[in-house]
């Protein structure tokens, strides 16, 4: 009986959306789109002598409007016309992810293996290695932020502040402090000495910034952390005597292979190990450093989740009041989450500084925070493997924009695909939230269980509640 009724509603659903109504709806959407695009795209203001003039580009407006019309029509025909019960699972992304889920452990192993052997693959060149290093840096940042957002449920929009603190601590310690206090032979070790220091400094900043916001929740917390991120950037830009302001800090020492520098000379890495000198050695070494740092972050997070403090984080995320009434010290719990997340951000920052050799406040804008947050959200808050997949997809996807020169043949030589990557990124953030707000990985493994381990759907956990 129930099936019969359902079947009836399905047909009614189909019949209710005849082509005329769909076309009318699409036409309305196209009209609104035209109104939206007409002034901003259609009339470009160009500075010329004697003031601004307008340059008209109605062709572009029409193309954009046509895209909206076609997109709306496609949505109607492909998704919205589906029967309701099928509609629940509609969408390519969710289905794909649903199929991926049983494979999670294998994906993890496969990614790990691929990451380890990447530098030795015959097709790997410097470009691939640099890209891999970048992906791993963001993966590490994602895992660090995952502690704060995914586990403890504290939405942090200023994570880049700790990245900046780590980078500047390393840069300042290694360029201004160590040359004065360390004996010469120890200077080659400066990366390894400064790394824990910058991590500790970042963790301190995590505490300093975490302390005032203990009482805040949700959106308010997000906006205050954003403000902190901006404050740090403004201070870095304007405190010229310390940070050299917008010009940044050049000449940051490169890491050494436990005291052996990557130089051409007699005491260099290549000579010591009887190899031929090649600049790629340093790149490979940097790649392995960030791989190890990222894996450490992952390992620590996984272990911490099993400790009382990790369980307290997750309990805090689910319900702060219940947490408090059960005797968990929410102050300490929040502060440790901030400090832990900040510490890993600081490590990643010092790696960034040593890899670039030059840092300036421009590298630490809000967009970086948004990018890392997007990686965590796309991956699925609280899921480490999801974050790993998301950072590969996200950073790899960004890089693809650089390599789409074939689009120039379609749109003409002036067309620069990399111009559009942030636009696509912003739209992707919205679309992910609409289609799959829980990210790619929607299963959560409970950290503690009575008899058997039952996977929990992400819909049942309250990430980012507090």
């Amino acid at each position, binding site marked *: 009986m129930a099936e019969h009724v359902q079947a009836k509603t399905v047909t009614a659903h189909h019949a209710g959306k005849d082509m005329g109504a769909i076309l009318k709806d699409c036409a309305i959407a196209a009209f*609104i789109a035209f109104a*939206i695009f007409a*002034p*901003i*795209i259609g*009339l*470009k*203001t160009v*500075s010329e002598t004697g*003031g*601004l003039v*307008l340059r008209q580009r109605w062709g572009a407006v029409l193309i954009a409007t046509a895209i909206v019309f076609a997109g709306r029509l496609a949505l109607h025909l492909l998704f919205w016309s589906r029967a309701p019960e099928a509609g629940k699972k509609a969408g390519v992304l969710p289905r794909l992810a649903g199929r991926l889920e049983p494979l999670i452990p294998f994906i993890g192993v496969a990614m790990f293996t691929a990451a380890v052997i990447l530098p030795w693959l015959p097709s790997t060149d410097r470009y691939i290695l640099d890209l891999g290093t970048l992906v791993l840096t963001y993966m590490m940042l994602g895992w660090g932020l995952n502690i704060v957002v995914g586990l403890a449920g504290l*939405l942090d*929009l200023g994570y880049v502040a700790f990245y900046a603190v780590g980078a500047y601590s390393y840069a300042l310690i290694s360029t201004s402090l160590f040359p004065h206090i360390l004996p010469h032979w120890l200077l080659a070790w400066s990366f390894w000495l400064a790394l824990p220091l910058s991590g500790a400094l970042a963790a301190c900043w995590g505490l300093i910034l975490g302390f*005032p*916001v203990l*009482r*805040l929740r*949700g*959106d*308010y917390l*997000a*906006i*205050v952390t*954003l*403000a*902190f991120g*901006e*404050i740090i950037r*403004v*201070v870095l*830009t*304007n405190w010229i005597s310390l940070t050299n302001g917008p010009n940044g800090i050049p000449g940051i020492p490169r890491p050494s292979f436990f005291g052996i520098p990557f130089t051409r000379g007699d005491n260099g890495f290549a000579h010591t190990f009887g190899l031929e000198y090649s600049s790629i050695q340093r790149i490979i070494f940097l790649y392995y450093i960030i791989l190890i740092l990222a894996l450490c972050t992952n390992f620590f997070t996984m272990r911490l989740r099993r400790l009382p403090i990790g369980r307290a984080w997750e309990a805090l995320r689910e319900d702060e*009041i219940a947490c408090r009434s059960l005797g968990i010290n929410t102050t300490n719990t929040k502060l440790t989450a901030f400090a832990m997340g900040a510490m890993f951000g600081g490590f990643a920052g010092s790696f960034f500084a040593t890899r670039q050799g030059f840092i300036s406040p421009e590298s630490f804008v*809000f*967009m970086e925070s*948004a990018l890392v*947050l*997007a990686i965590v*959200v796309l991956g699925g*808050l609280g899921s480490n493997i999801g974050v790993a997949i998301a950072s590969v997809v996200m950073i790899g996807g960004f890089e693809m924009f650089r390599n789409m020169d074939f689009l120039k043949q379609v749109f003409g030589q002036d067309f620069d695909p990399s*111009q*559009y990557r*942030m*636009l696509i*990124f*912003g*739209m*992707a*953030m*919205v679309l992910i*939230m*609409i289609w799959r*707000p*829980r990210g790619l990985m929607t299963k959560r493994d409970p950290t503690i269980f009575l008899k058997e381990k039952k996977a929990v759907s992400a*819909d049942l956990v*309250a*990430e*980012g*509640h507090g």
Partner: protein
Amino acid sequence: MEYFLQQLINGVTLGSIYGLIAIGYTMVYGIIGMINFAHGDVFMIGSFVALIVIVALGITASTGIAVLMLALILVLVIAMVFSGVYNWTVERVAYRPLRGSFRLAPLISAIGMSITLEEYTRISQDARPKPLQPLIDGGFTVAKRVSDAGTFVVSLSYIQIAIVVTTVVLMTVFTLLITRTSLGRAQRACEQDRKMASLLGIDVDKTISLTFVMGAAMAAVAGLMFLLYYGVIDFYIGFLAGVKAFTAAVLGGIGSLPGAMLGGLVIGLIEVFWSAYFSVEYKDVAAFSMLAMVLIFLPQGLLGKPEIEKV
């Protein structure tokens, strides 16, 4: 003293602009409990639309005063309409499907929308700042001090008067709209209890949409003011102005219209006095620290109701 007076005038002007943007934040937060992160960018869009219309109409400072006034009102209306359409679309595309989703989803979607709007404007209008020749010149001399160091003139420009007067007029109209009309009643009802309001026959979705449109219209007014006052805009003005206006909304008490205006004034004054007496470089730090301090010590704001959390 004269210097102080001048800064006071400047602060009130800036505060009016922030207050107008803050209304959009406070109304949206009041009704659906989310920060419309893209609101600052809607302000930016409003500013751009105003600029484009001004250039298209060919308005310059040499236009006669009567024509200029009429033309600017036309510009204002067009900018308000287009911003309204933008914010309506933003709500429809990015927020409405997420109602009832987990708490972070609308905020993240809003951040995505903010990036989208910024990049869209950057690509369509390029990243260079857009200068506009001043349209309204001149002003009154309020006070004058002649000393050995030279003459310091406290001036109140026509544009500052226009900004403050427009803000006051719009605020009055707006308050009447909220307190006297059925739309305002519906909005207040949705703010108090959305489910109950819908049970009583209020079209909640429509009310929310209209709230976004109204907030955007106010932001567009602020956008035109900003353009006329500073004479230069770019695609990134929405971010800073947005955060500061949000600070103003929080300071005034989120959900409260007079609070938004008061908060805007306070933030404008703080920023201007900080720049005048301490350092220009750190004026944003002052505004941001203010936000943090208000949220920590006075989370309900100056005119807001304290939030009671029930288990």
